[in-house]
């Protein structure tokens, strides 16, 4: 199947001279949820803005369902819905007028039933006649989503959709996202909250300082990059680790009551079996063993600090 979005060698140097993107390549398949993960200033918004036509690239190419975003901008943009990072809405318009406007602006014929369904799915139907300035922050963000969905896009960009949004609303938002995915809509969301990516993404792309550091399926990423930690609790406290263990990177913790061992799930052998045997040889008696896998957050922090080094 042809990818729905192809980004090749995308570059952006702002008028200020700042290089926000330095050669970004990214391919996105139809119907997936991709989380674009990166710290503030990484270039996430710039990347999205170029794809959506808000910012002119300095170099590189973008194709949306095969349509070049510059030469074939009508076809490319008609497929895209954008929920911007900042809330920007006309304060004195009603919700209904705004979503109707959005649909018309994208050249779609009037379809009140569709707009109603969109508003209902976002719990905004009761607010359809309310003016924007009467709405809460969370509602305004949902209005932005409703506007982006008004023209039935095939790709939805959500730029930090949950910034400043409470937990309940966030859950509601993920339900909407799941529903869209079920209908085959491709979703790209940016975030610097790892939990968000961990919760709903199929794939994760990590971006830092204008470069994509990696793109991988979330599960594979966690398995590949995940470091595991083994905590061995001891029956009797010891004063020091026998010398032979120091080289293996073991750590004595909890005032000598436990030993910490880090290992890589990527390795052929984890070395756990031999370690346990060696501990027994030294006469160290175990009380309990606990393992823990690192979260996406730790992976992410690891990648970004590696990149900065």
């Amino acid at each position, binding site marked *: 199947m042809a990818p729905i979005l192809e980004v090749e060698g995308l570059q952006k140097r*702002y008028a200020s001279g700042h290089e926000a993107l330095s050669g970004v390549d990214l391919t996105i398949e139809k119907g997936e949820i991709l989380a674009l993960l990166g710290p503030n200033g990484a270039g996430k918004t710039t990347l999205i*803005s170029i794809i959506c036509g808000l910012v*002119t690239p300095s170099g590189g190419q973008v194709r949306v369902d095969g349509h070049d975003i510059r030469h074939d*901008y009508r*076809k490319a943009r008609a497929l895209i819905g*954008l929920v911007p990072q900042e809330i*920007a809405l006309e304060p*004195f318009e009603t919700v209904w007028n705004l979503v109707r406007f959005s649909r*018309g*602006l994208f050249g779609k014929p009037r379809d009140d039933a569709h707009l109603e369904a969109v508003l209902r799915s976002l719990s905004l139907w009761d607010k359809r006649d309310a003016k924007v300035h009467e709405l809460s922050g969370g509602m305004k963000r949902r209005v932005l989503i409703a506007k982006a969905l008004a023209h039935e896009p095939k790709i939805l960009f959500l730029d930090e959709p949950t910034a400043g949004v409470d937990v309940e609303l966030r859950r509601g938002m993920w339900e909407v996202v799941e529903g869209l995915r079920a209908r085959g809509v491709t979703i790209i969301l940016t975030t610097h909250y790892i939990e968000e990516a961990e919760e709903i993404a199929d794939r994760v792309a990590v971006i830092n300082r204008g470069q994509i550091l990696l793109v991988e399926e979330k599960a594979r990423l966690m398995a590949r990059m995940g470091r595991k930690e083994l905590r061995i609790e001891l029956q009797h406290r010891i004063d020091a680790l026998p010398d032979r263990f120091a080289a293996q990177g073991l750590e004595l913790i909890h005032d000598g009551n436990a030993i910490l061992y880090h290992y890589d799930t990527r390795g052929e052998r984890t070395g756990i079996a031999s370690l346990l045997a060696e501990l027994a040889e030294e006469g160290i008696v175990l009380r309990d063993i606990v393992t823990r896998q690192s979260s996406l957050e730790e992976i992410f922090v690891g990648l970004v600090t590696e990149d900065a080094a």
Partner: protein
Amino acid sequence: MNLTAIFAIYRMEMLRFARTILQSFIAPVLSTSLYFVVFGTAIGSRIDQVEGVSYGAFIVPGLIMLSIMTQGISNASFAIYFPKFIGTVYEILSAPVSFLEITIGYVGAAATKSLFIGAVILATAHLFVDIQITHPLAMVAFMGLTCLSFALFGFIIGIWARNFEQLQLIPLLVVTPLVFLGGAFYSVSMLPPAWQTVTLFNPVVYLISGFRWSFFGLADVPVGLSLLAIAGFTLLCLGIIWWIFRTGYRLRD
């Protein structure tokens, strides 16, 4: 041509206009009445007639022009400046619409508003003085073209402006003086010869002259020249807008 999009923009702008319709209606009625009280009565009682037309009637075309030019500029400049200011312009820029469609939507709405105001002024003036319109078709054409070209001009200002001061600057410093000195309230022939020559460098003179001709058959400059001037101005504005959208000037980083 994405007609649906053009209509969506036009409709949204007209909805905003409709919300302030009372204000849009009362303001020109009031200002026209004031002009008649001050100019028509106070000054008119001394001037009496200009080239065979009563002074009260003589100033009507100028009054209409003054309003539709300033209104056209302020409506169109605000229409595009406001989305830039509050950030909603992102949606326009991300939509599958061409520069021409965006321009037609916004400028069309702004021009419609000016036309409405021009009509209100004409009707109000009619309550004060007798007005004959010798060339009604030409009158409508001049009025329509002026509304359109000044809305285009305002659209450019709205894109160019980075803040509210800049938004007000050109109308205040350039347009209002040009209109007042452009023969809105007098005939160029009433000026000393040296000033008549200077005046001919004011583009607004051509517009007002042509418009007045459509009412009374009197013109300071040939009508053909007036038409040429307004057509030229319209084309110039269109050219600048085309360039703006091609380069993304002040719209796309």
